[in-house]
């Protein structure tokens, strides 16, 4: 090995985490989704998690396309169903690290019920919500996170619904880790994702992200740079703040930071504990099959383990 090949630049290593053969991607110039992807793969690199043991699941939407561009096992599920698909994956093979990356409409509107229950169960998943306050893929309709009075193609005269405050929702449902950043906070996103990847339980990270083509343009909020400027001057790092204080108003203050970090037994911990009580301490989910056990015994008989000296 020469010095050069030993020293991959961080960009090459990030490149290895992307399906470069699928580039160029579909996202618009100035769209924030790509930045979140970069932070995510950077975090995976830093976490030291085996690239082969991490799975990404997305739903449908511009954000839902993330699964198709990252070089991991990946499933692009149906609209809203990334979390239950991820639940199936995690429970089928608890060794996997399972990450859901999807949009605000996908995870919080059509998929809201699954979000609630995965958090309630403390399912061992990392859920990253790319919140651009809109249905990007379908042309900029209102979502459950669109701030009051913002316009959308289906609220042309202004939004009159109450928006969801996602960290508060996740908190109420029992998520064990909750953070929020804007796409401007690259280093913090990376750090939070890395933390979430190494935590057990339901981790939720919301990333406020610009949809330049639809949300910003329709609300006359400028371009991607203006969005980053808005994030810069209006975000306030408030670690540990009460999640009830994290609502976002149109162009208002954005509370960012790590709000919740409370380790507790995961769904799989609970299953194992319950079944071990019932079956005994050698209980093992998907433990060895009888044929596997027999084959092992046969092997042992062939090569008996002898102790002591001949």
């Amino acid at each position, binding site marked *: 090995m020469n010095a050069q090949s030993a020293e991959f630049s961080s960009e090459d290593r990030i490149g290895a985490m992307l*399906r470069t053969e*699928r580039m160029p991607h579909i996202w618009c110039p100035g769209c924030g989704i790509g930045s979140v992807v970069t932070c995510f793969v950077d975090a995976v690199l830093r976490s030291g998690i085996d*690239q*082969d*043991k991490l*799975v990404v*699941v997305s739903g449908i939407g511009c954000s839902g396309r993330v*699964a*198709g561009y990252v*070089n*991991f*096992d*990946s*499933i*692009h*599920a*149906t609209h*809203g*169903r990334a*979390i*239950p*698909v*991820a*639940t*199936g*994956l*995690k*429970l*089928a*093979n608890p*060794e*996997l690290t399972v990450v859901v990356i999807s949009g605000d409409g996908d995870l919080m509107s059509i998929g809201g*019920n*699954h979000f*609630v*229950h995965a958090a309630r169960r403390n399912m061992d998943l990392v859920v990253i919500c790319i919140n651009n306050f809109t249905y990007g893929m379908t042309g900029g309709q209102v979502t459950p996170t669109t701030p009051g009075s913002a316009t959308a193609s289906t609220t042309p005269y202004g939004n009159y619904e109450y928006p969801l405050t996602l960290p508060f929702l996740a908190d109420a449902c029992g998520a064990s880790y909750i953070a929020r950043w804007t796409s401007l906070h690259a280093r913090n996103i990376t750090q939070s994702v890395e933390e979430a990847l190494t935590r057990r339980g339901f981790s939720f990270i919301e990333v406020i992200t610009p949809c330049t083509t639809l949300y910003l343009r329709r609300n006359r909020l400028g371009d991607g740079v203006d969005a980053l400027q808005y994030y810069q001057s209006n975000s306030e790092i408030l670690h540990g703040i009460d999640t009830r204080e994290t609502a976002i108003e149109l162009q208002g203050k954005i509370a960012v930071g790590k709000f919740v970090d409370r380790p507790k037994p995961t769904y799989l911990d609970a*299953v194992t504990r*319950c*079944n071990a009580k*019932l*079956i005994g301490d050698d*209980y*093992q*989910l*998907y*433990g060895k*099959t*009888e*044929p596997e056990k027999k084959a092992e015994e046969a092997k042992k008989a062939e090569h008996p383990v002898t102790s002591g000296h001949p």
Partner: protein
Amino acid sequence: MNIVHADPRGVDSGAHFMDGDHAIAEGALAAGCRFFAGYPITPSTETAERFAERAPEVGAMFIQMEDEIASIAALIGAAWGGQKAMTVTSGPGFSLMMENIGLAAMTETPIVLANVQRGGPSTGLPTLTAQQDMFQARFGSHGDYNIIALCPDSPQECFDLTVEAFNLAEAYRTPVFIMTDETVGHMHEKVVIPPADQIKVVERNLFTGPKEDFRPYRFDCQGGHPMTRAGDGYRFHVTGLTHDERGYPLMTPAQNQVVVTHLIEKINGNAEHIIRLEEDQVEGAEVVVISYGITSRIAVRAVAEARKKEIKVGSLRLITVWPFCEQRIRELAGQVRAIVVAEINYGQMVREVERCAAGRCQVVSVNHCGGAVHDPEVITKAIEEACR
């Protein structure tokens, strides 16, 4: 195809007295299913309850999801995580599952789903029998695709066909449905579960070659292309979008033609290997009664009565309902005077029979909507009238 003996841990060998719903859970465990996700609904819940009870001792995972959409989505995740997975439901839950049945078909994900049919539409007759979802099973999700559906007529067959459903799901990488009904589901009968070494189980065909050769799909109109599971290092991508053999989106009309043709023909083209029928005195018959599921049990009586009256009547039981036995119906239509189709719905499978008979024999529908099995006399009368 890798066929092995069942893992004895999942096989509760011996003679049992159990209902069809429980037998489905036992069949699943015998077939190597170690993942069950479901949501309670009458008259299917007993399957979930049995699986939940047995899961710890077998080392299987049972999870009650928040709804049926989540249940079937979890199955797709579990299958790509390497497990054989199943769910069970009935009418309203079956409707909720439709979108992700399409995802499973499109991504060629082997899963098994039992629909213990009850009367519909909507909440319908929650506790009473029906066979009203036969077309929904085949065509319920949007777009063109294909599936396999089996119809047990006894608790014993609930066990046997559940094992077969898993084997077919693996062999053709497709969703397979067990289209049973409330009556069979709740009927208690003797169920003999054979010793594990007498149960054949098709193992998942996992790709083991070099990474650069891995393709999750091959659109060759055959089933059984090897798949993989998360964590094995092949870095698969699966999507419900029209895709190429790497699984990457390729959204052109030409590719949709390729993918859809493959999805449909991998099953239709193998129909002769898949379809199982039970025939009785069909040769030389003037009339043949076609039935499936619980209705077959009634038809037996009706046919026996008709034979007492010297009518040459045969019977054909559809064990496999989808793919439909087109070839056999075409042959029969040229040989018999009439085909009588008995089913508990407004007339569903009879449409398939009519299509295949294509006017070459009379086709008589003996149907009524959900809630009760036939009075055998009604079928006997239809047989008599058909050969008059």
